[in-house]
């Protein structure tokens, strides 16, 4: 099937070339980082995880969201999602790939990566994260590819695929749960030390991921003859609506606990993010933008006419995606590190090389996604024709 990715229009190749250029730029700066060390990033002794780990956290959510297509189709026999489950699975593949790359570019000694396997340490959450991420990547490649191949040949998927599909459903939940456990099990980091972190991560994932899927469906429809269908898109829109409201609700629960209990360790971080602390407030405008975007999206999504109109739905999806990206990809990680354990403030701003490396990793993900989707749409067009 891969041959479908080798034949494409001029636009297709231009897009791939543009991504390749971004990858090359990112790789160049990564080599510099490898040579001089992580000192070229904005990270510091106090904010030891920055943009890379934040993108990883956000993308784990995008990856997990494939389950929002797989679960209704396979557990509830919701046939409308039948022809787009593979779109979700391949989005998961490219997202998990980006997650892994973000972890690798964040390591001080990436050539020692295999030490995690040579000295397996089950009490470290990073060990489990490695297992769930690799497992999820494997599951989605195998399932997506085989189901698509069977569809192309007009036969039912192989029998052994079914159990893998059922496993992939709780597995999707596990990847974001374990990712939340990286943070919420750490003593002395009041911002993350909350049992609702994993549920909140899942809610934001099931909002941002399906919102992105809707946007991808629009793009695919524009450039190919494959249409996910209004019914599927509207069903996804309802999922986004519920999830983004749940996400806001969980966040407000968080705010209540901190604000009402007034325990400084819990209020300090929220205060830093939304109002600034002792004159430091680099993220304040970002965080309020995030809130505004999420609230605007909720308003658009709960009004049936606005949700059913694809233009306003498109805007709502962009708002959800960007709003949650700011929350998780920007505020969530540095917010936990400021103030530091000694209640001192060191702010974090990513540097240019750091941003270019980040863009390079995203370009790798989009390249893989484009190639996989080219195969999917090629097969679908072949079947339709």
């Amino acid at each position: 099937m891969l041959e479908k990715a080798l034949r494409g229009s001029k636009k297709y190749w231009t897009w791939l070339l543009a991504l390749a250029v971004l990858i090359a730029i990112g790789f160049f700066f990564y080599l510099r980082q490898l040579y001089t060390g992580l000192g070229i990033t904005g990270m510091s002794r106090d904010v030891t995880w920055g943009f890379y780990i934040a993108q990883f956290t956000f993308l784990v959510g995008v990856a997990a969201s494939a389950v929002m297509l797989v679960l209704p189709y396979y557990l509830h026999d919701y046939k409308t999602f039948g022809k787009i489950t593979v779109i979700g699975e391949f989005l998961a593949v490219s997202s998990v790939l980006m997650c892994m790359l973000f972890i690798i570019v964040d390591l001080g000694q990436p050539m020692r990566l295999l030490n995690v396997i040579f000295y397996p340490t089950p009490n470290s959450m990073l060990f489990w994260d490695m297992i769930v991420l690799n497992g999820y990547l494997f599951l989605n490649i195998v399932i997506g590819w085989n189901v698509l191949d069977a569809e192309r040949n007009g036969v039912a998927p192989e029998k052994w695929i079914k159990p893998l599909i059922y496993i992939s459903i709780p597995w999707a939940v596990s990847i974001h749960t374990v990712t939340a456990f990286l943070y919420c099990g750490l003593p002395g980091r009041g911002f993350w030390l909350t049992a609702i972190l994993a549920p909140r991560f899942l809610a934001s994932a099931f909002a941002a991921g399906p919102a992105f899927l809707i946007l991808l469906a629009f793009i695919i429809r524009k450039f190919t003859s494959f249409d996910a269908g209004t019914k599927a898109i509207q069903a996804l829109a309802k999922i986004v609506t519920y999830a983004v409201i749940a996400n806001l609700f969980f966040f407000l629960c968080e705010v209540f606990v901190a604000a009402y209990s007034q325990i400084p360790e819990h209020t300090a971080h929220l205060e830093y993010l939304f109002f600034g602390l002792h004159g430091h407030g680099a993220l304040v405008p970002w965080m309020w933008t995030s809130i505004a975007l999420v609230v605007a999206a909720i308003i658009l999504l709960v009004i049936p006419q606005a949700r059913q109109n694809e233009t306003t739905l498109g805007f709502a999806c962009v708002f959800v995606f960007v709003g949650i990206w700011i929350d998780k990809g920007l505020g969530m990680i540095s917010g936990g590190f400021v103030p530091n354990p000694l209640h001192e403030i060191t702010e974090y701003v990513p540097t240019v090389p750091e941003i270019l490396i980040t863009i390079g990793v995203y370009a790798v993900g989009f390249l893989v996604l484009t190639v996989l989707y080219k195969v999917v749409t090629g097969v679908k067009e072949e079947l339709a024709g």
Partner: protein
Amino acid sequence: MENSRRRFLKNAGFSVLGVGAGSMLIGLSAHTAKAAGPDGGQRPQFSMGDKAMEAERWGMVVDTRKLNDSLCRKMQEACHSIHNVPEPVGESARRDQIIKWIWPTEFKHAFPGQEVEFLAEDVAHRPIVVLCNHCDNPPCVQACPTKATFKRERDGIVMMDFHRCIGCRFCMAACPFGSRSFNFRDPRPDIEDENPDFPTRMRGVVEKCNFCAERLAVGKKPACVEASDGALTFGDLNDPDSDVRKLLAEQYAIRRKPNLGTFPSVFYIV
């Protein structure tokens, strides 16, 4: 004749090599046997000399009443110079990425959440040295995915294997005391006077205070304790007759963030 002489030389050469390699092997195995403590021979550790100081759980009591700026500087210098901690200077140096094993701070930073209202001026502004607490229940060890940081069973010191660390910095997120530093760049050019008896680090690994495990192995107290003019007391917390236990029995001492359940082994008399 020529041929046999050459053969002789060749054989002799190999023999010398063989003997050399053999004795090296013997030497190595003897060394491992000597170094292997209760936690087995796999751990990197300093072989214990005859004069080695041993304890079940090393601990420290800091008498903050005896601290002042110059004394703190002296202790930090003693520690950092012995352990090859880089001192980056110049304009390109990023102050937010420095490495520190022991450093002075104020009461409110050393003990956030334990603030005392209307604290006496002298206490509020007196320098208080902070360092790795060598927690009895260390969260950094729990977080490390490669066991590069570990608690030495023999005496409770929380140590680092610089050669195993992958630089993920999970331990730094886990430490509630900000005691760990990361080598954001190659530290070697910034070491003014290298101590050949202690390893230098490379970029991309985490490091922190090791309670001078390398000095304890040859019967010396930690460098900061030696330089402290009696402000720092070091000893076995599990031995009721030790200096630290006697001091703790006489004086009221506090620990940093006791509510987190990490059980720090560094105590502070305020």
